[in-house]
């Protein structure tokens, strides 16, 4: 493989915009977050008036608190169960839909494609209201159908998973679909000429080509799902089954935006990032050699 640009500056110049943006808007804020995670405010006396509040260095105290918080670990347990469900269903559907969109004879493909992607476009502001109408017992058209309170303790995890699947399938479908479109069509033509059915082409030709895409979609989905926040936050005002610390990221949000403890939020966020790294690298290790097949 070649463009060996011996000592050329070209690749660095081409990457300069991305690296600059990364440094300014990711690396520096992340560094600042790490700095904050090592500090907290210390108040003296009543805490009213000048100088009664100062920021102090506390070492790893915030991390110790985050790791030692039983509620946070309960949150992880809840999230892992939820994530397994969402990942399996969402990615399964996305793969099936992408393959079907790419079959030669599918009709109404454009309609289906936009329809399946559209949920991604519904702004979060309306989500709570919308799911309220679809889930709350006295309003839901499904209440009679399922015969359970969709926001009750037994069903609420599935109700949230449904929101995530609904919202995320189209996105992943498009990633995989675009991936398929980038593959030279001659490959399929050759298989067709050999008399392979569409199903056989899908299973034997397309899926192997998609493997790196599937793996990385999975990694990204794992990271996104571990950071689950939107779905429980949308449902929380409607039900008393979800606490403000249902998921670890909700705890981060609560600390940063509700109780104003940016320091704990920063430490917990770093713990979340760490766990995301472990999970995604763990997954990559399992499927290692196939991930970057193209490089």
């Amino acid at each position, binding site marked *: 493989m070649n463009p060996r640009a011996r000592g050329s500056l070209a690749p660095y110049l081409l990457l300069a915009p991305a690296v600059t943006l990364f440094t300014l808007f990711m690396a520096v804020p992340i560094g600042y977050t790490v700095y904050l995670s090592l500090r907290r*405010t*210390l*108040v*003296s*006396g*009543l*805490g*009213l*008036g*000048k*100088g*009664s*509040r100062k920021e102090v260095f506390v070492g790893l105290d915030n991390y110790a608190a985050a790791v030692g918080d039983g509620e946070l670990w309960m949150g992880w347990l809840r999230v892992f169960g939820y994530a397994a469900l969402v990942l399996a269903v969402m990615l399964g559907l996305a793969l099936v839909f992408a393959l079907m969109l790419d079959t030669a004879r599918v009709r109404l493909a454009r309609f289906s494609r936009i329809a399946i992607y559209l949920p991604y476009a519904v702004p979060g502001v309306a989500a709570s*209201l919308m799911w*309220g*109408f679809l889930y*709350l*017992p*006295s*309003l839901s058209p499904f209440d009679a159908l399922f015969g359970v309170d969709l926001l009750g*303790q037994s069903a609420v995890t599935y109700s949230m998973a449904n929101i995530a699947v609904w919202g995320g399938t189209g996105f992943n479908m498009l990633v995989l679909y675009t991936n398929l479109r980038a593959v030279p069509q001659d490959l399929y033509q050759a298989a067709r000429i050999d008399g392979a059915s569409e199903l056989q082409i899908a299973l034997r030709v397309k899926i192997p080509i998609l493997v790196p895409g599937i793996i990385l979609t999975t990694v990204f989905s794992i990271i996104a799902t571990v950071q689950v926040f939107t779905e429980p936050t949308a449902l929380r*005002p*409607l039900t*008393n*089954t*979800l*606490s*403000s*610390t249902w998921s670890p990221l909700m705890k981060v949000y*609560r600390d*940063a*935006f*509700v*109780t*104003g403890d940016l320091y704990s939020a920063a430490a917990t966020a770093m713990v979340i990032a760490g766990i995301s790294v472990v999970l995604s690298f763990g997954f990559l290790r399992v499927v290692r050699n196939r991930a970057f097949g193209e490089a």
Partner: protein
Amino acid sequence: MHMNRLAVAALAVALVAGCSGGAPESGARDSAAPSSAPTEKVELTYWNWVPGMEKVVAAWNAANPNIKVTSSTQAGGDDAATKFLTAAKAGNPPDLIQAEYQALPSFVAAEAVADIKAQADPVKAEFGDGIWGLVTLGTDAVYGIPQDSGPMLFYYRADLFKKYGIAVPKTWDEYAEAARTVHQKDPKVFLGTFSSKDPGSFAGLAQQAGAQWWSISGDAWKVAIDDEPSRKLADYWGGLVKEGVIDDMPYFTPEWNKALNDGKLLTWPSAIWAPGPLASNAPKSKGKWEIAQLPQWNAGENHSGFWGGSSVAVAAGSKHKEAAAKFAAWLNTDPEALALLVKEGAVYPAATKGTSLLTEAPEYFSNVPDFWKQAAEYGAGARGFTFGPNVNVAYNSFKDAFDKAALNKSSFGDALKTIHDATVADMTKSGFRLAQ
């Protein structure tokens, strides 16, 4: 002595900020001369979520060409407070902000709002002592000008009370009895609901019961969220929820709106601003609601509490604190401003003379022509309490603890203890001095 130190410190803040700004406005010292209007033009930004504030501000701008105020409509609630605190921390705050009474102490503790005693003192007489206490936090400083208040009253469906043959409850015992009657007559209908998502409502009812969640004793905070009146209140509602005669759906959800519309909820112990939400959430039951005094703990008493309400505060980082404070004072005491606030913003003014501006009943309550007179009477006995520096922690803990208690039908008293402990733990961790 400590209070004096606070005042001195606050003055120092004002002076330092004035110098560093390099603006002609010179901080607290000059403000003694009332007419020292800045000759140079200043521009002030004002974050708030009062509907129609642009019109009120336009009236000020027309009369005060040298102090131009720009109103910027923000989202209200918890994250509004966070947003302001973040902006203040970054040294980039608006000059003026709407500060809910329960959020003000955390603003003060973060040194995000200025002491505007010099501009506030002249208008002190316009407000009741209880309200004024909410902006001084019981110190010598003044951290905001009260804007609106939310004395609580009892809203009920007069038509359905007749239908179910119940009388307006005078005491909480009668309320419980009425709840049982209603629910027995129609298991789908409830007299009321306990909202685990609205700590403000619970705090108001706790105030009515005589609670003092926070207080300042010497130079230490005293926290008593599970004090005897609050515990009585929690156990009372916990009992009703457990018995199943009161619903446990939260307020302000689509389901609650529907229940109100469908006549499945007969009462709402709420604040004086309730006509607004009722009109938008339950338009179908317009003209069917009436108001009464909150049920009392002991027959013959006349107590109420406050739910909601806010003040206008001046950011400590503002370069034009004096001008900003002047505007805040005008906004909340000038007859023209008050009239506009009432008309455009549906604000229930905190200024005592503001109440006289409220003559015509809200459209939703056209069946109660003397709505404001009645409301003023029922709300007259409202008593508040001092809010502490971490109300956000207590309120968040409230939602979690009462969610759980309502879900499991477990002890509400224990939930209250959980909140108290979480609040104390947070204050201890932050280093606040606590009285024992």
